[in-house]
């Protein structure tokens, strides 16, 4: 069993290849669908609610899982660990592609365009979410509960009234559980819960940024995305 509670060890990691990066792939969708179906009351959602719930899990997972992996196995070398096991060195921060004369570092216009599309987003998520999340020193249990809570919270307003009722119920259960864990860990448990819940500010902000960015990327067909990703991002409420 991986001592870091991550799917990758340090030796599994490989450098990020932006040229061949295509976003989420088919197996990612399958894994995350399995994750979604394990949520309590998922089977009682309407079809629309299940759709929304699953889509937002994809976005939340990208940000939060990357944050957790980076904290666990990327922190020592200031690396951002993506959910596909690739890493990006973030010290010093990589160029965004918008610098003067940045084009000269790329072999082709296509490479340059793709780099410019992807790297600013990665840097933004790193600065906005990954660095502050690592500062929290979250445990695996806190990470799991926080991710579930974020999913429930970010989908809340997309639900029907009955869906919101289920969401409120599940949120309260998770908050209660988180509270017990934090208070069991020592004094100032309320501060710990507060910090974890306040971290949802930047996590949801990054999630929103990611979603919008990928909508643009798929619209302009910058990435050679999996068809499923296109479908995810073109869903209408």
């Amino acid at each position, binding site marked *: 069993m991986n001592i870091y509670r991550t799917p990758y060890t340090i030796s599994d990691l490989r450098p990020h290849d932006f040229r061949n990066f295509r976003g989420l792939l088919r197996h990612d969708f399958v894994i995350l669908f399995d*994750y979604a179906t*394990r*949520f309590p009351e998922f089977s009682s959602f309407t079809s629309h609610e299940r759709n929304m719930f699953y889509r937002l899990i994809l976005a939340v997972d990208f940000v939060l899982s990357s944050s957790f992996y980076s904290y666990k196995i990327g922190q020592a070398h200031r690396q951002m660990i993506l959910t596909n096991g690739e890493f990006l060195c973030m010290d010093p921060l990589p160029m965004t592609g918008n610098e003067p004369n940045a084009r000269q570092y790329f072999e082709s216009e296509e490479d340059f365009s793709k780099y410019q599309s992807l790297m600013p987003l990665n840097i933004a998520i790193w600065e906005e979410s990954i660095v502050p999340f690592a500062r*929290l*020193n979250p*445990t695996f249990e806190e990470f799991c509960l926080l991710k579930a809570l974020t999913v429930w919270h970010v989908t809340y307003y997309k639900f029907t009234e009955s869906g919101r009722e289920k969401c409120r119920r599940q949120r309260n*259960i998770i908050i209660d559980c988180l509270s017990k864990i934090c208070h069991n*860990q020592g004094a100032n448990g309320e501060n710990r819960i507060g910090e974890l819940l306040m971290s949802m500010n930047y*996590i*949801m902000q990054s999630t929103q940024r990611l979603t919008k960015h990928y909508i643009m990327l798929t619209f302009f067909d910058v990435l050679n995305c999996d068809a499923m990703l296109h479908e995810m991002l073109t869903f209408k409420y």
Partner: protein
Amino acid sequence: MKREAISAIQFERDPVGSPTSGASMNGTPFKKDRASPGYEIGGNTNMGVNGSTGQENMRNATSSSSSVIDALMEMEARVNQEMCNRYRRSQIFNMNGNGEANGAQVDPVLQQAAESTGSSAFAPPNRPCTTEDLNEISRTTLLLMVEWAKTINPFMELSMDDKIILLKNYAPQHLILMPAFRSPDTTRVCLFNNTYMTRDNNTDLNGFAAFKTSNITPRVLDEIVWPMRQLQMREQEFVCLKALAFLHPEAKGLSNESQILIRDARNRVLKALYAFILDQMPDEAPTRYGNILLLAPALKALTQLLIENMTLTKFFGLAEVDSLLSEFILDDINDHSTAPVSLQQHLSSPTTLPTSGVSPLTSGVGSVGSVSSGLTPTGMLSQTLAAPSAIHPLQKQADSLLNGNFILEAKPPMLE
């Protein structure tokens, strides 16, 4: 039920890493190294071996938390008083275009309403909001926000850049939070200037305000007002939420030293909020505490929408964007070549809201000092805003607070 919830939330990429394994799930504490400089454990609430020492610590912690909330409440009351003085009088005396009171046309209904609502922050809203109303109230709200911020420790200890970062990060949230809390229901957002915005109240507004409000007002009502009403949020909880939204250590560009100071201050507010809820509703304290804090991410998401709307409004020239709003919300934080001059000038001047002798957000038990008795809120605010350097060069004279539109004569001190 709760254990089932945890076990169902399986870590998807690691089938071996079941959350049901490990001692932590059955309540046994496990050690975790938290050497991060930003995270503190322990503090001044550790229970001692001696029960009396522990009880004393608990009393000290409760007292400290109570003083934090008391001070925040006091600051809030002062801000509300300023708003009341400004807008209640504007309803009593029917102002003409130059802002001169027309005593012959005092509206008795409004006067009675204003007098009868002496304990509320503002008179009941009586007309839909116009574009001018929105601009004006936003400007006033932001100016008072600066004064309020000056009283929050450790704000005044920060560098000018860090102060501006904090204010700019918080300003859009403030514009949403303040009217949201005062709104009685989810049919309309009530503003301090006795106007309101409904979900569909965009037909009479011009491009700017329509753009600004059309997709925000319904979401504010659903995502902020409704949860507040459902929770029956108290004023004490609201002022803590405001302070927590303001004290954002992860704001982009903050120096490391400021982050530590702000994080410490935020932790004190968190502790105070929890202590208050625990005292009021011990059975549902954890969930209530969590549900109040969950308003923060929703608020942040709405501020993004507000910023986008205003950016597009300015970009497409749909309407004039108020200069102060533009400084707070639209200007690039990292672009110091266009540093908000008037904002810096406001920050450089001393606070116009009376401050306590000891800031409750400093460590340890602090007592709330007496209010300076020689100054009145309105007089002090006027002095700050009356400084020539405080007026933005683009501000119209007619809109200026300097020309005495809504400035009252000096009143006796509030506390004697």
